[in-house]
């Protein structure tokens, strides 16, 4: 057991650091993909990474990757997040989920067409799975694709689509057969997000931001060659996408802002004296710290398994539940400490409103990418081996499944 890099890891890290020092933009516009200059900076950075083999480190070189190992990818990620934070964000869904799916289930022409430009950051992808009728239950998708000759006509709506407004292509899960049970009547397609039959509308989040979209399809025409996998195999293909999502390790679980709470407590009093000496607060700080540290070391365990060429265990499945709940609890407690000032946001609030921002972001984190409840089900079923929930829609033709409103 050793926290330090092995000589091989250290050498790689040194090489990466030197490259980043040389190449990371010095005075870049922030990596905000919503701003034109931010997106331009992101694309330029991605191209630079691709030319050096750092854009998709674990992918074979013939696909434009680096032909490297997972541990190298993780070390690069750690160093990149310090040297060029946020710049790679717009490509995460494409390279992490959509393109691996195309590589697994797509035809040769699509692989040849899409992999290279995605690696180089020339084309951005989004994932079109969730629908108003199916958030946790993604296989309940209703967006309908009807085949006429060599062409499919798609009508329906997707929701919670990150980055749809700046994406060039999307991976779309559509219903192609309403007469079979829900998992069997789905088919995957890729679509051109610039097609006029695709309309993207931003969702106004409770936090004020707009990171997600609704996407509407009105008589969108798609060639049969845009099918990814066989007709009716859409759910199997979707599982490939979601498995790739689970393999993305390392992010998300930081959240150890106990230092920030401790800083806040230094300038605040309670009725019993300085907040920094408040026993109740100190106990909570310890609880948060221990959970955040536990997540950090859990990630290290996963990284170790990957470094040793093993398949990581299920331990990383706990990260988001813990991180999101600690974030929410910490924000609420810190605001309680601020007392009436806790009501404020922005510059007048202590620490420029950091805890208020966290409070408003936390509900999203507890829901996105699998709600707390779905994740607990996943742990119970896939890790502990408890039975699946009873499903009333299992052997019923999709068109006969009760839908409520």
């Amino acid at each position: 057991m050793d926290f330090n890099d092995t000589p091989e890891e250290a050498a790689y890290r040194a090489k990466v650091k030197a490259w980043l020092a040389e190449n990371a933009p010095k005075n870049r516009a922030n990596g905000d993909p919503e701003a034109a200059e931010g997106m331009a900076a992101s694309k330029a950075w991605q191209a630079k990474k691709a030319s050096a083999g750092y854009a998709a480190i674990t992918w074979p070189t013939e696909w434009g990757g680096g032909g490297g190992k997972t541990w190298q990818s993780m070390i690069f990620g750690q160093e990149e997040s310090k040297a060029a934070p946020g710049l790679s964000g717009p490509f995460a869904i494409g390279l992490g989920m959509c393109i691996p799916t195309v590589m697994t289930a797509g035809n040769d022409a699509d692989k040849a067409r899409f992999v290279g430009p995605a690696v180089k950051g020339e084309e951005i992808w989004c994932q079109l799975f969730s629908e108003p009728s199916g958030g946790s239950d993604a296989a309940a998708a209703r967006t309908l694709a009807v085949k006429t000759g060599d062409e499919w006509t798609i009508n329906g709506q997707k929701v919670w689509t990150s980055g749809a407004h700046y994406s060039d292509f999307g991976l779309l899960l559509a219903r192609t057969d309403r007469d079979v049970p829900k998992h069997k009547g789905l088919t995957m397609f890729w679509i051109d997000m610039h097609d006029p039959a695709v309309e993207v509308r931003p969702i106004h989040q409770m936090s004020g931001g707009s990171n997600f979209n609704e996407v509407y399809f009105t008589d969108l025409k798609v060639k049969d060659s845009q099918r990814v996998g066989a007709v009716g195999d859409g759910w199997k293909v979707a599982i490939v996408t979601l498995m790739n999502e689970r393999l993305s390790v390392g992010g998300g679980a930081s959240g150890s802002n106990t230092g920030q709470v401790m800083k806040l407590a230094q300038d605040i009093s309670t009725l019993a004296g300085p907040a920094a000496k408040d026993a109740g607060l100190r106990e909570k700080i310890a609880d948060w710290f221990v959970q955040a540290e536990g997540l950090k070391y859990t990630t290290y365990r996963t990284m170790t398994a990957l470094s040793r060429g093993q398949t990581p265990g299920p331990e990383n499945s706990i990260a988001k539940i813990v991180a999101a709940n600690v974030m929410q609890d910490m924000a609420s407690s810190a605001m309680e400490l601020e007392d009436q000032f806790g009501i404020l946001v922005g510059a007048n609030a202590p620490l420029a409103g950091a805890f208020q921002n966290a409070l408003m972001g936390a509900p999203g984190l507890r829901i996105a990418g699998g709600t707390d409840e779905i994740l607990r089900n996943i742990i119970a079923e896939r890790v502990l081996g408890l039975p699946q929930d009873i499903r009333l829609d299992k052997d019923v033709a999709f068109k006969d499944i009760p839908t409520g409103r």
Partner: protein
Amino acid sequence: MDFDFSDDQKSLKGEALRFLEAKCPVSVVRGVLDDPAKRYDEGLWKAVGEQGWLGATIPEEHGGLGLGGIDLCVIAEALGRSLAPIPFASTVYFVAEALMLAGSDAQKAKWLPKIAAGETIGCFATVERPGVLTEAQVQASIQDGKLTGTKMVVTDGDIADLAVVLAKDGGRTSLYLVELGGGGVARETLETLDPTRNVAKLTFIGAAAELLGDAGEGMALTEAVLDRAAVYLAFEQVGGADRCLEMAKSYALERYAFGRVIGSYQAIKHKLADCYIKTELARSNAYYGAWALGEGGTDLKIAAASARVAATEAFWFAAKESLQTHGGMGYTWDVDCHLYYRRAQQLGLVAGGAKAWKERLVSQLERRNAA
């Protein structure tokens, strides 16, 4: 980055689990629970001694195996899982560690081989009053090399041969070695929540005592011992929590209510998922603690406190919710849930409760932030 046990350590763990499955079935634990005259299982103690585990971290020159703290963690996890009713923690995590931290060459040479051979049982006698251990509560005192005073809640105090005792000589608080077979020592068994572990009150009236470590360093040494013990105990707690979750899971898969197994209800599934989450967080913190055993310093203080807090929470949650999952059967003497329910409290308090450790953790964080 290598944040896992080595292959050797994993095979040691496998060996320890198999050994304890064979030598410490729950009947052995119940043998001590149900017989008030039995204060530990002597057969198991002997067998564990023969395995060399008592001297796992004791240097070879003193008759031990000379392994690292991490290796002992692996053994601790197996012991916690099996609820081993033996004075292992007192002897190995507390007394042997105290001797290795602070003992003179002569003291080490005298005692470590005996501990490694299973000839000497140790106990760590510090507290005198309810509440967290503070220097102010220490009344036991030394005069002319003789110890007088009373120590309460001394785990394994009844069966120990050697005590490490916190006492004052004038204004200075120090640790002392006291041979309990000598004169001036009275022992009284105390009833406890977890009768599978012995606890006694030790009364010293002019008992011969020998300084352990530097005079005046008693509190610092006690904390140093507690830091190391906390890591080992965290592994015992994780082992116990694992077992509780397994028991709950297996019961939830076989018990039917309303026409289906109770493990198919989300109320049970989510509770057990939470149990898994807490146990994994505890395991990861304990791993960090195991690594920090070799580092010492601030790293160890923070890691030990984190491991202690996380593991205490995890084992307690697993023990109480595993019992709850078993329903009415879980509340009976015959089902094993209460053995873990008891041990979770015993382990959660024996090196000081989580509340105090949280305070120690935050103080260390403040110190680190200021540095």
